[in-house]
C-alpha cells in the first residue's frame, strides 16, 4: 500500500497521550496507550474508557429511507424516533457485505448511519447504487466518533451533558457536550453500558479533552477494543462475518425484523431461512493457550469441523476465548471439540456468548 495513511481529528492528542500508533483500515490509529492493552481492557470494565473510532463511516440518508430495506433485512420502517438499530448489509446473494448501525433522530426525516471503517467507501457506493435515487446517502467521513464505555460512563457524561442519563440502551438523540453539538447514542462495542458521540471534526479534540479530564476516564486503544468486543461475543467484520456467510450461519438472525422474516423480502431469504451447514459459535479452550484466528477446530475423532475466526485472551475472563464456525451438528453449547494449536491438540468446548455478561442499561 503506497497511499498515505489518514489521520483522525484526534491524531495529535493520541501522540500527546503516548499512544502506539499502527495502520488500521487506512488510518493511523492508537493500538494502545502507555497503560497497555490489559490495563486498558480492565479499566473499561471497571470504570470508563474513551475510544477514538472516528475511522468508522458515518453518513446521513435522505429521501425514502424505507428503501434501505432493499439492502438490509433489518426492520427499517418500524424503527421508532429516537432509537438506533443494528443491521446487516447484504449482497444480492444474501451474504454479509457489512454490519452497521442506523438511527432515526426525533423530528428529523434523515436517517443517521455508521458503517465499518475498512468497508465504508464500498458500502456507501453499494447502498447508493441499490437505492437508485429513492434515497440519497451523504457520507460524513469528516465527522469524528468517540465511544465512552464502562459502568461509570453515564456518570461522566451526565456532568458534561446534563439529562443524558435518561437515554436507555439503543436510544439516540442530539445533545450538547462541552458546548459542542453532538449526536449521542447509548450503545457501544464492549458489552458495557456506554455511549457513542458523533461530533464535528473541529470539536472532537475539545470534547475528548473534557472527557479525559474526568478522573474515571482513560484513553483506550484498538487492542483493548478488540478483546472487549470478543468477550462480549460481538462480530468483527472481515473476520467473523464476510461475504461468504449469511445471517443464519453468522447466528445474527436476531437482527432481522419479524416482519421481514414473515415476508421473506430480503436478499437470499429462502437460503437464509432454510437449514444451515455451519454456524458461528463461541469456543472456550480448556487450557491457558489462546487459539488465534485460523486455528482449525476438530471433532473428538480428529475430523476438521471448522475454523476459529477470532481468538485470543480475555483479560476479564482471565483465560483464552474464541469464536468461529463449526458444522451445525457440533454447534450446541457444551459440545467438546479440539483445537489444533501449533500441531498440538487442545481440548475446548462450544460455549454460550457473551463470554462476559453484557451490562447494557435497558
Amino acid at each position: 500500500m503506497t497511499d498515505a495513511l489518514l489521520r483522525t481529528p484526534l491524531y495529535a492528542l493520541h501522540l500527546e497521550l503516548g499512544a502506539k500508533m499502527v495502520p488500521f483500515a487506512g488510518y493511523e490509529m492508537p493500538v494502545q496507550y502507555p497503560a497497555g492493552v490489559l490495563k486498558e481492557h480492565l479499566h473499561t470494565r471497571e470504570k470508563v474508557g474513551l475510544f477514538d473510532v472516528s475511522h468508522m463511516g458515518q453518513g446521513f440518508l435522505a429521501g425514502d429511507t424505507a428503501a434501505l430495506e432493499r439492502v438490509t433485512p433489518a426492520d427499517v420502517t418500524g424503527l421508532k424516533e429516537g432509537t438506533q438499530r443494528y443491521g446487516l448489509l447484504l449482497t444480492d446473494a444474501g451474504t454479509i457485505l457489512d454490519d452497521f448501525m442506523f438511527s432515526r433522530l426525533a423530528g428529523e426525516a434523515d436517517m443517521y448511519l455508521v458503517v465499518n471503517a475498512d468497508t465504508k467507501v464500498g458500502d456507501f457506493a453499494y447502498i447508493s447504487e441499490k437505492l437508485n435515487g429513492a434515497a440519497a446517502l451523504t457520507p460524513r467521513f469528516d465527522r469524528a466518533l468517540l465511544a465512552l464505555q464502562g459502568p461509570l460512563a453515564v456518570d461522566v457524561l451526565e456532568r458534561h451533558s446534563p439529562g443524558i442519563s435518561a437515554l436507555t440502551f439503543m436510544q439516540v438523540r442530539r445533545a450538547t457536550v462541552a458546548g459542542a453539538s453532538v449526536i449521542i447514542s447509548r450503545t457501544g462495542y464492549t458489552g458495557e453500558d456506554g455511549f457513542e458521540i458523533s461530533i464535528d471534526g473541529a470539536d472532537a479534540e475539545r470534547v475528548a479533552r473534557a472527557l479525559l479530564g474526568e478522573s474515571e476516564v482513560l484513553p483506550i486503544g484498538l487492542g483493548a477494543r478488540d478483546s472487549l468486543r470478543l468477550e462480549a461475543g460481538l462480530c468483527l467484520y472481515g473476520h467473523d462475518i464476510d461475504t461468504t456467510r449469511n445471517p443464519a450461519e453468522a447466528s445474527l438472525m436476531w437482527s432481522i425484523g419479524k416482519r421481514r422474516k414473515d415476508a421473506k423480502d430480503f436478499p437470499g431469504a429462502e437460503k437464509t431461512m432454510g437449514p444451515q451447514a455451519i454456524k458461528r459459535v463461541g469456543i472456550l479452550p480448556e487450557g491457558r493457550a489462546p487459539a488465534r484466528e485460523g486455528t482449525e477446530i476438530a471433532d473428538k475423532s480428529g475430523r476438521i469441523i471448522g475454523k476459529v475466526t477470532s481468538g485470543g485472551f480475555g483479560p476479564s475472563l482471565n483465560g483464552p476465548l474464541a469464536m468461529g464456525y463449526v458444522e451445525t451438528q457440533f454447534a450446541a453449547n457444551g459440545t467438546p471439540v479440539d483445537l489444533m494449536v501449533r500441531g498440538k491438540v487442545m481440548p475446548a468446548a462450544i460455549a454460550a456468548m457473551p463470554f462476559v455478561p453484557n451490562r447494557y442499561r435497558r
Partner: protein
Amino acid sequence: MSEVRYTDQHEWIRLDGEEATVGITKYAAESLGDVVFVELPASGKAVTAGGGAAVVESVKAASDIYAPAGGTVTSANSALEKEPSKVNEDPEGEGWFFKLKLSDQGEFAKLMDKDAYAKFVDSL
C-alpha cells in the same frame, strides 16, 4: 563469571560455565505488551541456533522465541505458566524462559555483546 549475549530477534542468553539461560530482552517485552501465555520447551528437546524454541503470547498476538544457539534444553521456567506477567516485570531476570546445554560455544561467541545490542536497538 557469566557472560550475556543478544540476538537481533531480541533474545538474551547468559552463559554460566556449561549452561546457558535464555530469555527475551526488555525491549522485546515492551514491544510485545502484556504477556498472557508462555509455551515452554520440554527438557531434553534439541534446539538449533535460530530455530523456534518457545512461544510467547500477548493479548493480541503470538510470537516465536528462537534459540540463540544450538543445544539441548535442560530445564524451563515453569513459574511463567502460572505467572506469565513475570516476562514483563523482570524480562532479563525472573522472566527467563529455558536453560540450554550448548552444543557449540562458538555460536554463543558470535552473538552481539551488550554494547552492540544497545546500538542495534537504537538503530531500530
